[in-house]
């Protein structure tokens, strides 16, 4: 059994169906990419896993436990953490307070301090700005902070939603390097990206979402080489 599994998930916004029977899984040690165009249902999938919304049908299983209708706050405690699209930092709080909010569900002070140090190692820029108000950071710094904040929960799975969106190419490289590093340290990553070629090149496995349906799945390499995917998402 995989660490995180979705089985036939249907999800709605009001009366509009956003997901149709989505089934996917993320296992220990993996980077799994979720690609697709705008409105394909990528963010909805993450929100459903996080418990920000609940599916109308289907199941979400984490670590052998059914979390389909578990509260968002509880899911974080179980070990799924998300860096949401648009970073969603606490703009009027300091960088340090943002990171500490990431560790909100934990009470092991010594380990929190160690993780904080680790995040500073991953993102030295974040450490430099730790007493600054988060809203005053540049786009790249904010993305680093958002990822660092997600890691502060010491998650068993980290979900990153569009981490490279709107960043300069050099920063995109940095971000992807860190994603790999996080994964090398043993944390599975579920990565939602519009930059499909970047995402597929780091992903072990990937899913292609089209209008709420899983249209294709395979290893990162398989999808990179697939003609359909190349046409639709890689601009070839």
């Amino acid at each position: 059994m995989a660490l995180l599994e979705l089985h036939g998930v249907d999800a709605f916004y009001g009366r509009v169906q956003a997901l149709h029977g989505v089934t996917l899984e993320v296992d220990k040690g993996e980077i799994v990419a979720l690609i697709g165009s705008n409105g394909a249902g990528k963010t909805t999938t993450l929100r459903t896993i996080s418990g920000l919304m609940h599916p109308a049908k289907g199941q979400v299983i984490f670590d052998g436990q059914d979390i389909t209708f578990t509260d968002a706050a509880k899911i974080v405690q179980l070990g799924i953490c998300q860096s949401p699209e648009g970073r969603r930092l606490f703009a009027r709080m300091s960088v340090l307070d943002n990171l500490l909010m990431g560790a909100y569900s934990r009470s092991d002070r010594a380990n929190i301090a160690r993780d904080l140090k680790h995040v500073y190692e991953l993102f030295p820029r974040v450490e430099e700005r730790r007493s600054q108000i988060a809203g005053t950071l540049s786009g790249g710094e904010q993305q680093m902070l958002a990822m660092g904040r997600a890691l502060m929960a010491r998650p068993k799975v980290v979900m990153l939603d569009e981490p490279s969106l709107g960043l300069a190419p050099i920063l995109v490289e940095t971000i992807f390097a860190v994603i790999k590093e996080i994964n090398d340290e043993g944390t599975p990553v579920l990565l939602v990206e519009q930059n499909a070629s970047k995402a597929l090149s780091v992903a072990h496995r990937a899913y292609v979402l089209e209008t709420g349906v899983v249209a294709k799945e395979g290893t990162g390499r398989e999808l990179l080489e697939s003609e359909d995917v190349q046409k639709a998402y890689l601009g070839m």
Partner: protein
Amino acid sequence: MQRLRATFAGDLGTALFSTLGLLAVGWVVILAIQSPRSLIATMVIGITDGAIYALIALGYTMVYGIIELINFAHGDVFTLGGFIALPLFAAFGIGPGAHYSLVFIPILLLVFVLVMLINGLVNITIERVAYRPLRGAPRLAPLITAIGMAFILEGTMYLWRGPVNLRFPDLISEARYTNSLIDIGVKDVMVVVVAIFLVVMLSLFINRTKLGKAMRATAQDRDAAQLMGIDINRTISATFFIGAALAGAGGLVYALYFNSIRFDLGFSAGLVAFTAAVLGGIGNIEGAALGGLLIGIIRALVDRYISASWSDVIIFAILIIVLVFRPTGLLGMRVPEK
């Protein structure tokens, strides 16, 4: 274009603010030269009123900050604080005819704590029953429930104690310090000390504690806060609790200060305090305190030296000028969201 407008508004706004501020300071200096004693007496009135407005305004601003609800019932929650205190005093054997004695001070402190606690629990219940079920509903629905809640609270207090002006025991010393310049009572000092103490405590709580930070985080981005594992319901309950505890303390302070309270006091006091919260920047805690203090002082000065018929005109003119140039209020959130 937007930048241009912002710059324009910024410069013109700053110029206007400084001009108005200088004029106001000049005026006060002239008043001080004419009769320092009279000015000091007026400032004492303004600061004490302002401190009470501030205690109410904090609750408005905190609740708005976290769930964007104008909690119209908040003024009545303030009155409720005074109402709850009366039976508590009675339980400790202090009737409405009691007079100041040092023996009462520990009881007074205990009643303060109990009033804040009970008032907080009442407000948590109000939130749970009347606002939480409507959290996903259109904005107008909880707004109307809040207005309804205001009527229910006022009606309940009316039914409980009737339309009479409830006389409060004289638990604070009437002693005054008087010389040729200053005339200030123990009561005046009590109001200001209680208000400052509570605001400092609140500020420490909000900025230093985990729950306080979680409240700020929830106010800034509810979804993101949930993704951090913050229990939103608990945080919102805490906000209602603290808002009501402060307002309840304010109601008790008011009643001890003026020795009377009536079921409909919260209407006017709430209206002024809400204005104070907007002036200071709704959602901003320091802003609410500043707004309350400013409105108290401006009102006392205008009442005393111009005419009470102008008080509201001048206060709201200042409010409009501030909002036109700084729509988020004096200390409103000015950090851009990127």
